[in-house]
């Protein structure tokens, strides 16, 4: 149980981060409602970083990584962890200082700690995306990925976007000084009793580990993969002006199908159904879809919904 009574609950942490970044002019978006492996994959990042429009957005994103599941037995690993994602496009000159202020907003007096920005360059082969940046280390704990996006879907970005990804469970466990993620105090009942992360999420971890590692039907996963892939490819073809659809565009639809493929790839991987050799090939297939969507999106000059 937490030894730091002053530390925010998990829920307060989410609220404080959102409040801080809302103050900085970010749109507060909702978590994307499909399975994604990281906040980067949500269209609010993947598609918004493309094109010339300035954009600031922040959102929580449950991120599913089937292979990381541990049946709720490992105190540090989760199948589904929560990221808090911030996109600043273009990044202001004081972006690092803003980030450090956000730490103060959640109760981390970072000047009192050993804080280091250590090189960590991010790359997603499935999304054709990469950037350079750091993992932010606080007393030896990685609390944030800080990335200057350089390319997304194979497209060079202009302007550049800064992406901040906070690992919420880690930060909460650090602030509350608990040894297990499951002991994090999520919130308190009206009577003041703690409701823990385990109370809220343990079943999820357990049951989804059973599905991901044992029960997911490999053959049907492949079928799903191929169906989504085919439909995504069809949508991409339909965006061409010479297509029978007359160039009706649904790149967002195509992107959702692409994300489905990506998640199915992760599931197949967790089931041990993809050999090292096949891996490269399957990644290439998903990447081809993502790159096609990013190119079409950029070419279509889809305007921002929000005034710059």
């Amino acid at each position: 149980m937490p030894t730091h009574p002053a530390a925010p609950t998990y829920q307060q942490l989410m609220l404080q981060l959102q409040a801080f970044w809302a103050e900085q002019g970010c749109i507060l978006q909702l978590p994307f409602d499909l399975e994604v492996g990281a906040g980067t994959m949500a269209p609010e990042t993947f598609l918004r970083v493309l094109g010339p429009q300035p954009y600031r957005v922040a959102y929580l994103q449950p991120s599913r990584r089937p292979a990381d599941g541990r049946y709720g037995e490992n105190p540090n690993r989760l199948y589904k962890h929560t990221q808090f994602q911030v996109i600043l496009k273009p990044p202001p000159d004081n972006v690092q200082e803003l980030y450090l202020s956000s730490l103060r907003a959640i109760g981390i007096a970072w000047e009192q700690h050993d804080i280091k920005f250590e090189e960590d360059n991010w790359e997603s082969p499935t999304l054709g995306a990469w950037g350079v940046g750091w993992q932010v280390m606080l007393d030896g704990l990685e609390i944030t990925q800080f990335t200057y996006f350089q390319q997304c879907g194979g497209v060079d970005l202009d302007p550049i976007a800064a992406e901040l990804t906070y690992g919420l469970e880690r930060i909460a466990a650090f602030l509350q000084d608990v040894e297990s993620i499951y002991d994090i105090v999520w919130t308190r009942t009206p009577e003041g009793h703690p409701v823990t992360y385990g109370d809220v999420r343990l079943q999820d971890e357990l049951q989804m580990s059973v599905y991901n590692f044992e029960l997911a039907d490999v053959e049907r996963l492949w079928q799903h993969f191929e169906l989504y892939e085919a439909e995504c490819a069809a949508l991409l073809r339909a965006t061409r002006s010479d297509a029978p659809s007359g160039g009706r565009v649904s790149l967002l639809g195509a992107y959702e199908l692409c994300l489905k493929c990506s998640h199915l790839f992760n599931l197949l991987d967790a089931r041990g159904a993809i050999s090292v050799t096949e891996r490269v090939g399957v990644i290439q297939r998903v990447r081809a879809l993502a790159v096609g969507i990013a190119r079409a999106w950029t070419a279509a000059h889809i305007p921002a919904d929000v005034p710059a």
Partner: protein
Amino acid sequence: MNHDLLIELGSEEIPARMVSGLAQQFADQMESRLAATGLIAAAATNRRVFWTPRRVAVVFPAVAQNQPDRDEEQVGPPARLAFAADGALTVQAKNFAAKFGAAPTDLYRVSTLKGEYVAVRRHHRGQSLAQLLDTLLPEAFAALDLPKAMQWQGRAGAKFVRPLRWLLVLHGAEILPVRLAGLMAGRQTRGHRGLSQSQISIESAMTYDEQLRLHFVIAAPQEREATLQSALPAVAGCAGGRHRSDPNLLSLLRDLTENPGVLAGSFAKDYLELPGEVLVTVMRDHQKYFALEDAEGRLLPGFCAVTDLAGEPRAEREAIIRHGHERVLRARFNDARFFWQTDRKRPLFSRLEDLKQVTFQARLGNYHAKTERNLRLAKWLAEQWHADVTTIAIATPLAKCDLTTELVKEFTELQGKIGGLYAEAEGHSPAIRDAIYFQYEPLSTEGPLPPSAEAAALGVADKLDTIAGMFLAGEIPTGSRDPFALRRQANGIIRTLLERTLTLDLNQAQQEAMAGYAEGLGDRATALSGLQQFFQERLEFYLREVGGYALDTVRAVLTVSANDPLDALRRVQAVTSTRQQAATEFAAAAAAMKRIRNIVRKENWTACEWNKDLLQEAAEGELAHCLELHRLGQGGSDIDDRPEIDRYKSELLWAADTGEVLERFFTTVRVNAEDPRLRANRLGLLAWAAQELSRVADFSEIVLADG
């Protein structure tokens, strides 16, 4: 006035692995440009270079404020074209003057080697340092070779490794208002992130590092390194041990901090039940901690962490930071312990079948098939090296099983070691453990070697199988492309053979290795010749770079044969020692051999046949007699029980002595005789001499000192 010139590029955190190189590059680029303008002496190397994660800076002492003025003579048209018959200036001459902004009256005559011309004197005002820097600084910046470039201002903006945030340029106490990457130079810099207020004003180039120190930034890397070098043993000593020294980690941490401090932390003793390899990997590679050990090098339950928060030590803050580091390490160790325990629920051998699911390489199948090939090859090697075949028969099937363990998936760099440790934990013999544990060794020219003949057999078999398979599949290293690290693996084989004194017929071994693969994978003859060349290059690399032997000696030996690396090493040693012992004779023999080679090559002569009755000159007879005696001596070499190197030496000494005989031959015998029978006989004799003299090394490869 001459003043110190300070340039500081302020950046967001530059990766530790590249900051020192960037700082040196920047200083070099600026220095050569400043020297070219005449603002600093070309040989002025007393610059001071500083760097931290957030800055790269250089101070050049005594830089002039202005370039000196200079005059330049501009030569124009020849005098005969510049003046008309009446002595007046021609249109051409007037145009020339106008082009350089001079009045026609400024023209004067000059005499040159080509005749008389007109010229005009041009006065160049020296530019100011500020003007020059405005161009030089962006040029120097753009010339940096960036290990991984990024942009932060969009496509039209600057490129660097992280965003530049400020620019400090002072000449003495004066700001030089130059621009770079959208920044205007000023006197502002920043102190330590956590320990100082962010903006500070530098008074002059002279006070730069001292002012930074007051704001908790140690700008000189040497000083940060010295701090760490004294603090680490002190802190480790207080914690009851010593830190495990690691120069690479030390310089990484030096460049990851602006004000390094060391703190010791501890962990529960029972984690020491985990293998030391795992504990050290977690501490060093994942957390950048120095492991703590006792005087005998045994791990203690503690570590030293380098923080970027020296300055006034406050016990309370240090306690919080220590608590944090210990917490993270505990979580990492718990993970490792979980894997260590889970993995051992299944015996290693039961994982062999799982290797069918682990791909070795797309065209070369899975690790189960590789294990079978390795076994065959390792047994073949073990028999030649009188190693224990039973050990091989047990160790080889277990060797790759750790690839399916959770611990190796987490700590891939510990493959092999983990397998060895699991085998040991299951009660296998130390010999079996070692064979598995060291199978990937040696990974470098200094790394540990397989400690036994059994371990060597398994290690060499594994690497040989990989290399042969990749060559069959057409995955041959080219230039800087070597994705499967085949060069490193071949180096490993050669080092094992040479340093464990194991003989091997490489040609036969390569064929043996290829036989493990299915027919039709690739053309074997092509692969074999590729492999021979590849191994010869690796052997040459080893003998030159690691052994330190002369290139021509190495070539002379390998030209004769590179098939058994150990034998090649002995011949190289023999040649090296003979070259020193009998330098003059050796040189004479080398010169004679070059001559023979030239003649034989020119004539394309291969037959070593000759007839005694056709020997006419005394020198011919002497050579034939000398070679004949040598041939007879060779016959007895079966019972020669001297070490090879001594036999090679006496062979070489004989060859060196024969140099004289050859010299006499060339002075008195005309090879190109008119009688074709005589000519053929002499060529045959020389071809035979070349063959006899080149049993150990080909003397014609030797480079003679006087050319």
